[in-house]
């Protein structure tokens, strides 16, 4: 059945990424590895039945505590913030892997696709990957909050948008930072180094963020005037807490703000993400294509070098050194090309 190019690309990438067809054949047609399927069901069932009620109770207690001091918005703010932070930490690896190390790039680049189409589909895939985090850490608090406070229809509609866009901001920032950098740093060449470097960088960023946020909030709380202002206007604290992560404060205002303003906040929330996404695509389009071709150069260049090495030693066939063997072993493709 003929499908829209972009929809087909995204659905196929999702299918290939999660191995859906393979699992379907394995589980339901060949009846193989069924234990894996049931184990997964069992684990999720266990979590849902035994951990679920405890989690709901804890969340409910937290909401009550926040409500007692009129800061229920902070509960939602924290949920969005924590989910976003997870997205930042895990997303960085997913973005690098999806954009620079997956084999399907060789195939996609040979097809009549614009760089921004490939970029869009791949970033969508990263977002879906990260959405699992949102389903775990954001969806339950949002639902429990809605039920406990008897939220209206606008809350539930807004909730869907907040959930769907919850991982967009981290992915957008990562694309805006990583794709241009990749023009100067060959990620393909320094894969191992990059993983260590990024991990250290992330730890530094987390500590820095924690230090900044704690100091900022502590300073805010210590001021008597601001404490009074905070208690009389809880939105102020949300704005203050959320200024380090704008989607959180805007999202909260869209969820539980006052009157018609909520709709405007929701509009701003969507606009911010859509504009950010297009900007990330624009940056990626300007940098990614060349980066990918450079990555190809690296791969082909390495292959060429390895071939050259073999040719250099072809006159003395018994002088194969460890170095030769090492290079050959790293490039099994050479033998296939003979």
């Amino acid at each position: 059945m003929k499908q829209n190019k972009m929809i087909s690309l995204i659905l196929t990438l999702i299918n290939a990424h999660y191995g859906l067809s393979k699992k379907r054949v394995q589980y339901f047609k060949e009846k193989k590895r069924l234990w894996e399927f049931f184990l997964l069901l069992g684990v999720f069932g266990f979590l849902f039945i035994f951990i679920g009620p405890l989690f709901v109770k804890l969340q409910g207690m937290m909401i009550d505590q926040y409500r007692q001091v009129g800061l229920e918005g902070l509960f939602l703010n924290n949920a969005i913030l924590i989910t976003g932070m997870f997205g930042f930490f895990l997303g960085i690896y997913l973005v690098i892997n999806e954009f620079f190390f997956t084999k399907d790039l060789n195939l996609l680049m040979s097809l009549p696709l614009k760089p921004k189409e490939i970029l869009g589909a791949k970033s969508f895939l990263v977002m879906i990957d990260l959405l699992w985090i949102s389903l775990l850490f954001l969806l339950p608090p949002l639902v429990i909050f809605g039920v406990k406070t008897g939220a209206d229809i606008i809350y539930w509609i807004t909730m869907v948008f907040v959930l769907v866009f919850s991982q967009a901001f981290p992915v957008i920032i990562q694309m805006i930072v990583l794709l241009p950098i990749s023009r100067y740093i060959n990620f393909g060449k320094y894969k191992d180094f990059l993983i260590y470097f990024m991990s250290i960088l992330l730890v530094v960023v987390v500590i820095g963020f924690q230090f900044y946020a704690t100091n900022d909030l502590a300073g805010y709380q210590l001021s008597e005037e601001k404490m009074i202002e905070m208690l009389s206007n809880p939105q102020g604290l949300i704005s203050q807490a959320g200024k380090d992560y704008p989607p959180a404060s805007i999202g909260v205002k869209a969820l539980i703000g006052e009157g018609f303003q909520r709709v405007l906040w929701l509009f701003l929330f969507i606009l911010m993400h859509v504009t950010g996404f297009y900007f990330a695509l624009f940056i990626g389009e300007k940098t990614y294509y060349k980066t990918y071709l450079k990555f190809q150069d690296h791969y082909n260049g390495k292959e060429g070098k390895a071939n050259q090495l073999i040719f250099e030693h072809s006159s003395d066939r018994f002088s194969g050194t460890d170095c030769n063997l090492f290079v050959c072993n790293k490039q099994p493709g050479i033998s296939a090309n003979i």
Partner: protein
Amino acid sequence: MRVISIHDFSKSYSKGTFAVKNISLEIRDGEVFGFLGPNGAGKSTTIKSIVGLLNPTNGSITVNGHDITKASVQAKYQIGYVPDEAVLMEKLKGIEYLNFIADMYQVSNRQRRERITKLSEAFKLNSDLVKTIDTYSHGMRQKLSLISALMHNPAVWILDEPIVGLDPESAFRLKKMMKSHSEKGKTVFFSTHVMEIVEKICDRVAIISKGELLFVGTVEKLKKNRGDSTMEEVFLEVTKSEAEQDDFSYLDAY
């Protein structure tokens, strides 16, 4: 009419070292064009540049009038490309993969149904299309790669060692398809190491060695210039191979 036009094309992977140096080639419509050369000569680099997988360091490449770097999408619509190593989506079923490729080329339902049926029957892959690709043998992958490349009825076939991995019957059918495609005024550009195929189906050939073009012309002209030797002998002579002088007695020395 010139279908593929390569003008002063060079490709360098590192400063000062050229994988391909200043080659110019014109491939016309209705032609089966063989691209020959030893391993590491620059064949795959040239082919990857024609299909837009590599950026030329110097020069330009156009396919049916579309510059591959400036109008890559339009150029790629003209091309059916089979790489030297089939790059497929392993966890998809064969039929899912073909449908995905058909979507990318905007092939109509009718055309894809017809072509998938006929091509998969020709390559004897029809019953395997419901299996996931990671269960395929090397030959089956090559067949799937071929079917996917030919499904949108491209004007230009660019095949990098397409015969590798195919069984004799499929190889024979592919040769027939290549010839039939050119007879309809379309173009086949392919690389191979099998001299017998070159002799049988190529209208013209180019020989590349160490990144430089050594010969462009018909097989007859090539053979005539070298005193009517076999294609294999001609190839070894043109590429200055020392294979004929090799002494392999050491193989049985112990």
